[in-house]
């Protein structure tokens, strides 16, 4: 079974002469949070719009739930919840009335969907406040409520924490995380803030000037994020003895039968190697790994970094 919920193949979008999205191949796996990271104007929103069929594709293909979305909108859209840019609602209605309009049109998965959705995002159900009087944060929350109103399998969230205060951001983040871990939803989320994506995403796609620079699992990236010396030797117990007795190193960890990590990166490795050789320990390799996520992103975006 194909486990990609969203897959784009050589997706291209041109506005006139200008190429907004260039040959992007995104793979969103089932049950995971995919973070689309890029600066404002990098093409994140355009990609999301193309996935949703809101804007025509210049060339390439978008598969959602393993099938091309074109012509199957009625079957596919009810399985997706989305916020694109700022959420739009009717200003002369209250939040609840707004959601009821969308619930009526789309149908719901449970009888009291509107109340549940409002509860989840922390907006009051019985409230006379009109949407036009809402703060930006409340608008954003209502947008999220609308996206989860029908309990969709796939959520496409374009900068969902835009306009929220720090507490609100943390709340929304926890809640998105919860949707993924406790409810098994697949989530495609975009942001221009590295730390945000780093905290949330399982997989990450970095986009710059319409080009997908890198697509990677967050686990792999986080591993790159720590500083340590990876030492591969023939005899682990002897090595650990040398490290402890001769160099006073205690912060290391054994990875497997032949490799260990030393977290003290200022260690004089030449001396360590020499001492190990004296003890009849063969050193297969020793390498210094120190990359922070920021450094890493700077490297792949060509030195400009991300927001």
């Amino acid at each position, binding site marked *: 079974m194909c486990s990609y919920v969203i897959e784009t193949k050589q997706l291209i979008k041109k506005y006139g002469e200008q190429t907004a999205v260039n040959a992007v191949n995104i793979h969103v796996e089932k049950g995971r949070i995919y973070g689309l990271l890029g600066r404002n104007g990098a093409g994140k929103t355009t990609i999301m719009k193309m996935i949703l069929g*809101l804007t*025509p594709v210049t060339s390439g293909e978008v598969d959602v739930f393993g099938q091309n979305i074109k012509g199957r909108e009625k079957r596919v*859209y*009810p399985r997706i919840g989305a916020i694109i840019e700022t959420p*739009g609602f009717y200003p002369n*209605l209250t939040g609840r*009335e707004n959601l009821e309009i969308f619930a009526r*049109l789309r149908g719901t998965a449970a009888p009291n969907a509107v109340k549940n959705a409002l509860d989840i995002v922390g907006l009051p159900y019985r409230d006379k406040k009109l949407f036009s009087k809402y703060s930006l944060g409340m608008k954003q929350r209502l947008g999220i409520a609308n996206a989860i109103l029908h309990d969709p399998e796939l959520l496409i969230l374009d900068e969902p924490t835009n306009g929220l205060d720090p507490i609100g951001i943390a709340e929304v983040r926890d809640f998105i995380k919860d949707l993924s871990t406790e409810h098994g939803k697949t989530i495609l989320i975009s942001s221009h803030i590295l730390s945000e994506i780093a905290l949330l995403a399982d997989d990450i796609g970095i986009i710059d000037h319409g080009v997908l620079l890198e697509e990677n699992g967050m686990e792999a990236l986080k591993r790159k994020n720590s500083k340590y010396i990876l030492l591969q030797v023939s005899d682990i117990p002897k090595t650990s003895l040398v490290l402890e007795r001769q160099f006073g190193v205690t912060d290391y960890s054994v990875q497997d039968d032949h490799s260990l990590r030393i977290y003290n990166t200022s260690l004089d490795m030449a001396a360590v190697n020499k001492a190990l050789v004296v003890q009849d320990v063969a050193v297969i390799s020793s390498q210094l790994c120190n990359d922070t996520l920021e450094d890493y992103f700077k490297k792949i975006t060509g030195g400009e970094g991300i927001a």
Partner: protein
Amino acid sequence: MTIIFTEILKWKRNKTVWGISILTAILGVFAVERACSISRSNPLMDSFGDLYTLAFKNLTSLFLPIVLGMFATTLFFDEQKNDTLKGLLIIPVSKAQLYFSKIAVVILMSLGLCLFTFVICIVGGLIAGGFTDLNTETILQAGLLFLAGGALIPVAMLPIIFLATLSKGYILPIGAVLLYLVPVVLAPSQLMGLHPLASVMGIYPHISPAAIEMVNSWTGNAVITASPMTCSVSLLAIGIISTIVSVIVLQKKTF
């Protein structure tokens, strides 16, 4: 069905709707006031037909087309202004469904205003008193006339609604409404069968005897050359063409 219902829900607490209803009431009351002040011996107000055609004329000659044109424009434009269109499209509501639901709301609005005026006429006729011919038959005739006006005028306005779907603002379609009305006011009889609003006027005389009188005074007793058949056909044809073009334009439009 649900879409039309939600369209109506969207207008809750909307000031424009209230404004339109109040203006309609004022126009209706104005006709009733004429009925009260003009004596029954005057040929201008010697029958119930005179009263309801006066009210009908007040409502449909200028007010209703302008109001419907503006209403339709806001209907289409607000969806864009509030940024709710994308929300609807991913439900999914197709653009054609959206278009037809909006047209349905315009027709319902028009029918509603006409029936409202119709009720005012009956009540007004009873209050003013002295109408010898105020009986079931004339009331039914009046009802039919209002029903026809309410249903046909929106159809005649479809070309304007097309402009509303095309444009990105209020000004073009509202300006177009006014331009659209000018030829009908100047030369209604000659345009029957060509201009949709004039065609609607060509259909009225076949509904009730009082309407013949009304259209005659309207056109300055000009000889009506176009048959009701040509009028209906031309009206329908222009309406259908506008509808098709509107839907195509909406499909093409991205944002």
